[in-house]
């Protein structure tokens, strides 16, 4: 049951990305292209996602635990730090260059096209290497 719910959650997440057009890199770079022919789609996607999710976040404040775990796994890091801003800045460059962020890239890799497989392979290498370095400090 736990497995099935997590599978459905991932599947719905992917379906949302596909339906909204976010698995089309040109729509993502079109959103970032504010000085060109701007495509506001991504703003509508985020606004709708937040409008649906925020009430559920509030709802969990009144719950002692989620259905299938003993506690909520909220992020423990608080406050701004250089790593957060530097990381976000570097991510933005890769995102603008490719039109892929991790979610749409993982959905698209399901199709098995070589360019996306290369992107995801490189992303995983960067993710794993950086986590190892950050952990080692």
């Amino acid at each position: 049951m736990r497995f099935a719910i997590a599978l459905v959650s991932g599947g719905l997440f992917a379906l949302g990305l596909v339906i909204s057009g976010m698995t089309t890199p040109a729509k993502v770079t079109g959103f970032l292209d504010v000085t060109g022919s701007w495509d506001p789609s991504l703003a509508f996607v985020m606004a709708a996602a937040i409008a649906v999710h925020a009430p559920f976040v509030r709802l969990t404040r009144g719950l002692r635990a989620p259905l299938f775990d003993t506690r909520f796994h909220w992020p423990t890091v608080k406050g701004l730090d250089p790593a957060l801003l530097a990381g976000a800045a570097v991510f933005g460059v890769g995102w603008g260059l490719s039109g892929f962020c991790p979610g749409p890239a993982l959905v698209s890799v399901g199709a098995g096209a070589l360019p996306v497989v290369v992107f995801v392979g490189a992303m995983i290498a960067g993710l794993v290497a950086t986590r190892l370095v950050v952990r080692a400090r």
Partner: protein
Amino acid sequence: MDSSSVLRALAGGALIGLAASIALVAHGRIAGISGTLGRALAGDGGLGFRIPFLLGLVAVGALTALAWPSALGAAVRSTPVLAIAGVLVGVGTALGNGCTSGHGVCGVSRGSPRSLAAVMTFMVTGGITVAIVGAQA
């Protein structure tokens, strides 16, 4: 953008918000793709949440490739450029603790100052990147 793209963006975004809400209410987990992927690759399955969630994501991508291939849009850059972008996305999301989903949808829904700062940062550097290299090769 036409009215059908707006509706698709809103409907897809709502599904993403619903998927994130299921992950939170059922498993107590933040549906951030880079964090979920990074921790799963490090061998932390998150009590049975991470692997099925990621499987659902990729499986719907594979089904989309069969049923609606045009929804998985073509890459906007050459494969070597995508490899560089992939590394930047992997390094940046690991260092910055999140991407468009973890910071953009989940973090903003919580009103997290870290996530708001991250979103503003990656949108600015993404925008600058597209302003320099263009929305498509």
